[in-house]
């Protein structure tokens, strides 16, 4: 009995590693054609699904031609409508090519979009989350702190699609009125993402601040410290590790968020020039393009997925590193 139990628990534990490695390997093998084709230039190339004329015809190009699923001469039009692309796609298949072309994929736009939305979200959420946490942990009377605490937890429980809808219909117009530019943009997506990660950061930071021993705070007060000084010099340093952890966990969520961002970012493969420009993020690029993608295009999406996987993995590892340091 003892042995069976041991074996069972060992199997379940191993399963985690098998899953992790399995996911990584499948992502890698699916992304392999794109990796072979584009290499690391994929990360710095801003063109997604762009037809380029080949200078000289060789074997490789012929294979590529077969792989071409979606093609378009005018890359500005790609950005506009999926339907248009499909229509022209069909036309193109009827038309026989005169010049040999190949389609190239570059991940720069979604990578930049992902990182910038996350950064905006963090810059927006961090100060507010800290303010909420300080209020809940130190300033508010117990009953108010309790009620606000519940509200924060409810906010965390709202499904992301609701944030997306709300953001698109009610928040985006306000943003474009205030800052100009498009309603759907980097800024709108980043701010709504910020609202979404806010409750996590606030709740974890509050919990972390609440672990500051009362006697430590009393010691500071007993030296003549003001409430502000106690918060600044005692509570923040004491809960630093928890705050960093909350930031990294929030980052993890912001990086992978798909639904809300899909509503708000504009979903165009264009490098944003201003904060109010529309663009696209990695999860949105994947969600929007899987249906139509095949061949190299599909592989390029897997390449994006692999990059997101690695970014998220790095972020979580960093979080673990800090929590381990805390345990010591």
């Amino acid at each position, binding site marked *: 009995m003892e042995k069976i139990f041991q074996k069972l628990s060992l199997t379940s534990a191993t399963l985690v590693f098998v899953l992790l490695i399995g996911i990584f390997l499948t992502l890698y093998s699916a992304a392999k054609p794109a990796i072979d084709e584009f290499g690391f230039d994929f990360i710095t190339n801003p063109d997604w699904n762009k037809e380029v004329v080949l200078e000289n015809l060789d074997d490789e190009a012929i294979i590529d031609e077969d792989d071409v699923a979606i093609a378009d001469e005018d890359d500005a039009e790609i950005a506009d409508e999926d339907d248009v692309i499909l229509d022209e796609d069909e036309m193109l298949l009827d038309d026989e090519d005169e010049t040999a072309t190949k389609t190239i994929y570059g991940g720069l736009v979604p990578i930049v979009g992902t990182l910038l939305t996350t950064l905006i979200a963090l810059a927006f959420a961090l100060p507010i989350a800290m303010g909420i946490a300080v209020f809940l942990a130190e300033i508010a*009377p117990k009953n108010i702190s309790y009620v606000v605490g519940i509200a924060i937890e409810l906010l965390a429980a709202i499904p992301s699609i609701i944030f997306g809808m709300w953001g698109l219909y009610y928040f985006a117009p306000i943003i474009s009125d205030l800052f100009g530019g498009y309603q759907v943009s980097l800024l709108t997506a980043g701010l709504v993402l910020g609202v979404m990660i806010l409750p996590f950061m606030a709740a974890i930071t509050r919990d972390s601040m609440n672990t500051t*021993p009362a*006697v*430590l*705070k*009393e*010691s*500071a*007060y*007993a*030296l*003549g*410290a*003001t409430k502000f*000084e106690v918060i600044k*010099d*005692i509570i923040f*340093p*004491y809960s630093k590790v928890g705050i960093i952890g909350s930031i990294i966990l929030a980052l993890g969520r912001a990086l992978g968020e798909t639904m809300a961002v899909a509503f708000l970012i504009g979903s165009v493969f264009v490098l944003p020039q201003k904060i109010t420009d529309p663009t696209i993020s990695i999860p949105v690029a994947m969600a929007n393009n899987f249906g139509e993608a095949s061949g190299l295009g599909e592989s390029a999406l897997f390449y994006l997925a692999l990059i997101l996987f690695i970014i998220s993995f790095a972020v979580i590892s960093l979080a673990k590193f800090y929590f381990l340091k805390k345990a010591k």
Partner: protein
Amino acid sequence: MSVMKIKKFSFTYAGVDHPSLKSITLPIEKNKITALIGPSGCGKSTLLRSMNRIHDLYPGNKYDGKIELLNEETGKFENILEIKKENEFIKLRQKVGMIFQKPTPFPMSIFDNVAYGLRIAGIKNKTELKDRVETALKGSALWKEVHDRLDKSAMGLSGGQQQRLCIARAVAVKPEVLLFDEPTSALDPISTGAIEELIVELKNDVSIAIVTHNMQQASRISDYTAFMYLGDLIEYDKTENIFLNPKEKQTEDYITGRFG
């Protein structure tokens, strides 16, 4: 001569009907050590924590009577229970320092710990800070052990060293009264001995009130002893009288170990 006069002081915690202290009248003598003894729940810590109004960090407590503190400049006694403004609280707590049951080093370096009270009091001059930190650490018999690692985290010190660091931190701001709330209950006998010696030395500069569970400690170091029981002050006298010749039966029962 008294530095503090507690007059008919009663205290009731928030949300409790029963008072924890009932009409306590007690002096704290200047440059003497006054020990507060009694069984758990007798109110001795509550009384101590009223002397710098640290209770007021938590809302809803009720109190009555007076706690008067000598103003060294005017020579007059001022009722600290009338304090309402934050800057007056700060002044009070700079005059009446406190050491807690467990060592409470702040999450910063040894130097910054001792300098903390000085810095928030507005002292920025580096040489002055250095001098006063050194004096405080020497006064707390810690200088020899830490002078070569002042920039290291205070968390790396032993329990006894941490407690002496907390004393140095409290002494650095030059208080008039120091309140000790069972300062050695978390320490081993050797560290306890060092802290006791330190407290006795400190009374040359400050007046001291100490809460202790340890009756030997009270008899070893204190000049006056107050015995409290269930929120009442049963007996207050010179320490030798309390321990050798108590007037009250309850005091005698307690110090001979018959209850408590």
